[in-house]
């Protein structure tokens, strides 16, 4: 199992049956693969659909039905389509139970940065700022480090996506939860030691697990 699949599988465990979930593009979108259909989870894509399903059979793609990454999707029974005003109304209004987003950095206060590296890469925030602001629960799904550099830092050096504290951080090494007291190390992934997590993390950790 590669790092991304490990992360996606762990995030999937956080998703409760019958909830409405928005998955960011890239790594977070893999999470859908590990949610059983019978869980009755509905996926929202911010480009305007609730009840997004898997990729359609070859030759049956509809150019007017894609996910927020532009990939062809299907609509499950009970799906609803809407314009962007309604879609973001649902997001900002607190009607989405959970969002899973990628991250460039998360800091000790649980603040996410994921839309811009000044001077280098400026993709833009798309819907991420609204999602972090409005979703019931925010999970960051990302690799623990980037080319050896820690992404979990004392204070974000990259521009923030929101000042809201995210609820959980899931990486291939660990599960961490920002709290009032600081960043708690809640779980080490199988085969990972506490020291390995500490080593790969630039922020201080509160240890609630032991090897």
């Amino acid at each position, binding site marked *: 199992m590669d790092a991304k699949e490990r992360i996606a599988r762990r995030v999937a465990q956080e998703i409760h049956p*019958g909830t409405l979930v928005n998955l960011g593009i890239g790594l977070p979108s893999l999470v859908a693969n590990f949610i059983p259909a019978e869980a*009755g989870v509905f996926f929202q894509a911010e480009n305007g659909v609730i009840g997004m399903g898997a990729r359609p059979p070859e030759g049956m793609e509809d150019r007017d039905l894609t996910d927020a990454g532009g990939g062809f999707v299907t609509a499950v029974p*009970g799906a609803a389509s809407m314009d962007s005003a309604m879609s973001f*109304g649902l997001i900002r209004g607190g009607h989405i139970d959970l969002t899973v987003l990628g991250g460039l950095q998360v800091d000790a206060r649980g603040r996410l940065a994921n839309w811009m590296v000044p001077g280098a890469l400026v993709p833009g925030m798309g819907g991420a700022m609204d999602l972090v602001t*409005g979703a019931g629960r925010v999970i960051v799904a990302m690799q623990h480090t980037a080319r050896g550099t820690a992404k979990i830092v004392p204070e974000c050096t990259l521009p923030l996506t929101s000042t809201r504290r995210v609820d959980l951080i899931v990486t291939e090494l660990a599960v961490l939860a920002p709290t009032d007291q600081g960043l708690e190390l809640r779980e080490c992934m199988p085969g990972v030691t506490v020291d390995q997590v500490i080593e790969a993390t630039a922020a201080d950790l509160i240890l609630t697990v032991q090897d």
Partner: protein
Amino acid sequence: MPTKTALKPEAAAELVTEGAKIMIGGFMGVGAPHRMIDALVERAPGRLTVIANDSGMPGQGIGKLVSAGLVERMIVSHIGLNPETQAKMNAGEIEIELVPQGTLIERIRAGGVGLGGVLTPTGIGTLVAKDKRVIDVDGKEFLLETPLKADVALIAARRADYVGNIEYTLTAQNFNPVMALAAATVIAEPDAIVPVGVIPPDAVRTPGVLIDHILERRR
């Protein structure tokens, strides 16, 4: 998405407690949840705050709640067709906040879509501006109008499916789709309940995620 619970009107009425703030869809009774209103009159929780377009007419729609003495406060755009509301207002029995209709629907929408308010030109220089912040944008003045939310919204619809997707029709839409965004608990009273898939995605005006309960079919 889980199938909703079909509630009997009396069970649905239990969800509206004494002193609750409730939104009720409809425009002079058109597109109003009449069975829910009757069940509320029966159950009779008092001191309600009602947010709605109007106060109905005596013996009709929201007018029944007024007649039953259940309403302590109303936030509405119009009470002209219900002399009883006027009389109770004059007697100090009901507090009325009159809001321009376009402002009322935007305030409910703001509450439902997580906005802190909207700036509207409507009401500038009138009694409606009293005690409100006036904000200048590019040299033009606007009133800052704040969000409205409710404990329970009672909405009427043409059809609902089992997961709560809702379809409205013609002028029976009015306040219903927006109110469905703005309350902690939303109860839909559809004319018909249909299997999932009968209402196609493009016809859904209120996605099921917004609906908590559906009133059982009329017996």
